[in-house]
């Protein structure tokens, strides 16, 4: 991820996402939307609008796909660098 990204933020694998929209419903700040685009399996995937994530982890815990969502929390960068 680029260094300019503001933590926390979610990273959604658009190719693994099955478009069930559970994460969109679970997001307290409404920063996830369903894409107009289709992925290789023909699903409209979920995507992050780029700002406003509070790192609550709801999208991670409600997503039925183990590897579709990663949430980088607030302290992620500082820990990785140190």
């Amino acid at each position, binding site marked *: 991820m680029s260094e300019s990204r503001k933590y926390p933020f979610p990273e959604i694998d658009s190719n*693994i996402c*099955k*478009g*069930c*929209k*559970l994460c969109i*419903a*679970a997001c307290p700040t409404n920063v996830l939307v369903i894409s107009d685009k289709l992925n290789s399996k023909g*699903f409209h995937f979920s995507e992050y609008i780029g700002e406003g994530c*509070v*790192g*609550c*982890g*709801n999208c*991670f*815990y*409600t*997503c*039925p*796909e*183990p*590897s*579709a*969502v*990663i*949430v*980088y*929390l*607030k*302290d*992620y960068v500082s*820990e*990785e660098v140190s």
Partner: protein
Amino acid sequence: METFLLPWRSLRRSPSFTGCDMEKKTVLRKPKGFIDVYKHKPGAEKDRTHYCPGCGHGILHKLIAEALEDFDLVEKTIVISPVGCSVFAYYYFHTGNLQVAHGRAPAVASAVSRANPDSVVISYQGDGDLAAIGGNNIIQAANRGENMVVFFVNNAIYGMTGGQMAPTTLAGQKTTTTPYGRNVKTDGYPIQVCELINTFTAPVYVTRTSLHDMPNIRKTRTAVRKAIMNAKEKKGFSFVEVLSMCPSGWKKDSLQSQQWIKEDMIPRFPLDVFRDISEDAEAVERPVPVMDPEEVKKIFGYSDFKAGTIQKNPEANFEKVFLRVSGFGGQGIMSTGIALANVGMEYDYNVSWLPSYGPEMRGGTANCSVKIQEDMIGASEVTEPNIIIAMNQPSLEKFEKIMVPGGALIYNSTLIDIEPSRNDVDIYPVPITGIADELGDTRVQSMVSVGAFAAITGLFDPEEIVRLMPSLFEGKPDKVLRMNEEAVRRGHNYVTENFSV
């Protein structure tokens, strides 16, 4: 994280969850409880599950895998897969796994847990598996308080087979097998499994949670972690029922499915902690059963039994005995076999005896397999006999066919008036029942057979058999012993007088 009061705050303070501080996480990603690449999954898509969009299984899988990673239990865990969509749990969990017959996961989990007391054993089951075909298995495992966690995924239908009615299907719910809705007059009421499990004394943790919104997913997470911690600490039986979406089976999208759980399922399946004595429960240590041969001898009255003291006959006609004794039940079939096996043991042979009979105690057909040989015995069933003792005509017709050439066919000429069809075996017609009747009791015919067998094989000396009578007929009156001794001698003499052996 200081600025957000997160629901797992209270969880962190619970003494059961020490050492797994959620707030230390700086990234939420696929837990290590999962296999990195699903290499056991066929096909090209080894980076994703086979579950439908919006399926609850994936969420629960993730919560379990996360707990296993956080508690450092991945290596110690054995997941038992059911039959149902989650049969493929072994594609995903980086744990030990057994996939078992429909509904039998709690039974197998019991055995796995007893044999591996330091493991965390997880029985992961759906409602068709657990509440229908496996109903008794879960009841007995819960009642024994086995050290295990059961995750019961309740989606009110059979998901994998296409959405048929399950025991948990709601009244009025339409499924492929209840197109007009479940009628309680013909199909009964939805089974409330948590309430049922809660009637038993042994379980330590019984709860029902749901995946229908975030607060409840977090409650489910708490329950999953508590149950797994109970298993780690060997506290006994934990049961977590999870109401879960099946968008494909319910013909709804995932959000409608969550709504349906909230509005339709929860009234019948109320979310509650039905029991939680985890804090007070003590670790269950079960004694490991040990078989003490001396104790077994005592129980069976063999404490004075000394095997292998009689000299073998080096000129016996048979090196190995593969015997099939057959006839009506009540003709002494089993006693003949047992007596020969016991005598063989006194001669220090390896022996086996395997009975086979119908459900009737008397009057049905019966046969037994006996092996007597120097070498170790593998299978105890005799499929290619070299000796047959046929007590009636159906037995003769049945078993002469499977004899090996050169064997000895002994048949009861009192009751059988046909000739055997085999001409490549030695045939010994012996009036077994007739000799016994002459002695005054038909029941001694088994010892007549034993005597005839001794003469034909040359393996046993009839006088040695006579000396063993008190141990063969322990506790029987002298009169019975005398009659059986005479039966052995008469059977033996009949053969030596009428045939050249």
